[in-house]
């Protein structure tokens, strides 16, 4: 039995140590937003934050997550509440989520959990990224580009910029 911290809670897991974190999150912990896209770290649909850095959970053994904090989009509102002073109103979404809704980003949405994770990672390190920095984050910063088959890249750029302004204003 291992214990990992997911979205602020300590969770016991019984999966074998070599099990990719994705299957542990989805099948054992009922956290359904990170998706299986390729199992090869080539698309980003399974991305989660591990101590604030994006990892591809489809190839990441759960053993390596012990002692670290995993954040999925289920945990983004709480993450924002912890980071933001004064605390936002109860039930408030993370600015990235607000922006994703306001800009109507997802189409099929299967990749968007990973896209929001990447946006959160980016905006936590660069409050006001340029267009090139946004493109760089989603294309070359990780193990592979974050792929969207529906072609929502333009909407994602719009939403990252919008989220940046929300975070600067301390709204959401």
């Amino acid at each position, binding site marked *: 039995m291992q214990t990992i911290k997911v979205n602020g809670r300590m969770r016991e897991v019984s*999966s*074998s140590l*070599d*099990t*990719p974190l994705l*299957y542990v999150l*989805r*099948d054992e912990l009922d956290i*359904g*937003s990170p*998706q*299986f*896209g*390729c*199992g*090869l770290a*080539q*698309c980003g*649909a399974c991305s989660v934050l591990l101590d604030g850095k994006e990892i591809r959970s489809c190839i990441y053994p759960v053993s390596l997550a012990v002692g670290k904090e995993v954040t*999925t*989009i*289920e945990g983004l509102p709480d993450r924002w509440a912890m980071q933001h002073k004064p605390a936002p109103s109860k039930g408030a*979404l993370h600015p990235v*989520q607000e922006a*994703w*809704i306001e800009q*109507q*980003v*997802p*189409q*099929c*949405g*299967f*990749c*968007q*959990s990973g896209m*929001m994770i990447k946006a959160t990672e980016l905006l936590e390190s660069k409050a006001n990224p340029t267009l090139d920095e*946004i*493109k*760089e984050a*989603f*294309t*070359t910063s990780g193990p*592979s*580009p*974050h*792929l*969207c*088959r*529906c*072609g*929502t*890249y*333009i*909407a*994602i*750029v719009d939403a990252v910029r919008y989220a940046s302004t929300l975070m600067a204003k301390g709204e959401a």
Partner: protein
Amino acid sequence: MEQLLEAMTGDVFKAKLEAVTTDVYGARLTRRGFVKAGGTLIVGFSMLRGGVARATGRPDGNAFDASLPQSWIEIHPDNTVLYRTGKSDFGQGTIYTAYRQIIADELDVTFESITTVVSADTDTTPEGGGTFGLLGEGTPNIRKAAAYTRQALLQLASQRLGVPKEQLKTIDGVVYGGGKQVSYGDLVKDQNLQLTIPVDGQLTSIFGLRITGDPPLKPASEMKIVGKSYKNSNISSKVRADELWVTNVKLRGMLHARMVHPGTLGSHLVEAGKVDNTKFPNTRLVVKGDLVAVVAPTEWEAVQASQQVASATKWTEWKGLPGTDKVYDHLRNECDWKAAPVAKGRKNKGDTAAVVLASPRKLEATYRLPYWKHAPIGPALAVADYKADGSVTVHTHTQNAQALRGQLAKMLGTTLDKVVVKTYSGAGHYGRSNGGNAGAEDEAVILSKELGKPVRVQWMRNDDMQWSTQSPVAFSDVRIGLTADGKIAAYEIDHFMPAMQDDRMIGAVIAGLPTMDAPSEKGRMLDSISNGPSDQWLYDAVPNLVERAHGTYQIGQKSSPVKIGLRDHSMRTPGQFQQNFPREMAMSEAAALAGADPLQFRLDHAKDERLIALLKRLKEESGWEVHSHSAPKAASTGSGVVRGHGVSAMLRSGTYWGCACEVSVTLSTGAVKVDKSTFVVDPGIVVNPEQLKRQVEGGAMMGLSIALHEEVSFNESGVTARDWYSYPILTMAEIPEFKVVLLHRPEVGNMGQGSEAANALGASAIASAVFDATGSPMRQIPLRPEYVKKMLDARNSDTNAIPPHHDDSSDQTKPKSGAPAASTL
């Protein structure tokens, strides 16, 4: 087949009350009495996810009767509205946005009062049909259902208020007249009312049922909700992590399966590998025919065990495919184009062959488009729960749940009422499941039946690349003759494409179980090998025109010992993409031959007012700088980066599309970068500007991906693309400066379409921009650097391959003697 079915709904309070039936525009409104409580436009049933098959007594086993409007729309006593559609959502959001807006306008209720959308599940929706063409060229089923319902409500109000129907008006769910008013909710409260509406079609066909008759529809000028931007409620649930994805469906006792698919697209099983139970103690092997799978209680064990079993499983060899490098040679020289009748364009006129021959300047060229994968970001997945009584519920993500249900019943040799298909959000797959299956559904059912437990089958990335269908390869031969003053005297185009719609369930085929027929010459519409003219002709000033479409069997379909081969399936803008690219690229090449600007050249050959207005607007919005293209700007020995612009146009589903692209080409490498792209879209009525804009952007980015990157690689045995490195798609770094202009033209009356067509326009605009920049025509996509470089180096060698002549009856695809063979660049 006109159905006027009747069904009693609700509990009759006074059993002997005479039924009163009146006519509502061909529909029949019946009042049978009163119910004890609640509203009688509500059918009592539960809507819980994961429900089981409901015995209904209807011949097709459907719980919802499409001839009853309450199967489509429920008016609740609190004046809220629920509606149902057989369509599912594949990310365009239409069923949550445009459909609600259309219903709201036709019913005269607010957008917000439509509180519930029930979609696609076979046991909770009435209509069936594939999720495509959702606006149905202006009149989706749901619009008529709403129109019938409003008329019935008006009739009821007339009786209730004692005011003639003509003197009533409806605003926001309330009927006013004669100084009195009554809400819709009050009209239906405690009543047992039934409106029977006419429908035709077949529930489990690709098109499903269609509401017929002509209830009065609201003219565009009176629409208040259509035309405004409303947000998609489904986006919110996905972003908030509230969505129940198909990937999240879990049933008690469910097992995880992974497939061990055959070694080639023509293999039989020789021997299945044994599970190493020391490593995988809980794994079971299942073999049925050539179908091999491993099943385990956990996903990770199933994944690992499947790899172990796959490495020990033996298959017969098969090498019957031409391979990517030889595919166009194979198409022209090996395929039997006599097998299907030649289809002719509707606007064909004149003797194009003679006119082209006599023309002082002519373009004779061949254009080619490769196989593409639908390439969903998540691979195929389904959960099946087969019960001892022979019923099965399948949880999946399909564009056509009723068609899948029909196919599964056929595979099982059972009746429709035994099968329920439930749909959930999942990875979009752009046409792959419009005939029912996307892959994995049949395998889940086979395994669940075999094991007597719920089974979840998820394909791995390589399964999805190698065992799904693909968009078919195609080529077209074009001949254009110009007059001395540079106008088109004759235009002749012959399109060649193998069968495009193989809806057989692959697991059933592999297991040797019944499924629908493979495409053949005996097939009718959707299982035929015929090709049809799909690209509506736009340039009506051209005096002589011939368009022909030639079809044949899928590559490898007949030679594969298991009759599989390369299975094709419609994908966004199916068929029309394959025909529009050659047409539009040839238009740009003809303009160059005439020394004309390609946008002006199109205008010079247009008569249609909407097309002319669209092209003029495109010119303005894209900042198009007119220049004649008589001399190539880049020398063959050039270096550095050259820029060019290109244009394309299309008419699809009543929507006019125009696209202008600006590109940079690096001459030393052949790398193409799209710098700017402008889309102008005239769908007639723009139902929801914000959603349409996002749809166009998305479609256009997919189109950019197809234009620059996508081609399915295959060898003699099967598809060799197996992941995102061997089938690359567009990344964010490549997005250009992008502009969408929507032309809202309510006077047209038509509601056009969204993301289809957007994906198809870019390729020809980009290819013609590269031509403009370099002087080398690009007659094939994808415009990968190696192809572009080859074309630059070859300096028009492709142009020299004169295509053979064709006629209405022949299959003369082979070059006439003396003419050089078509290249396979």
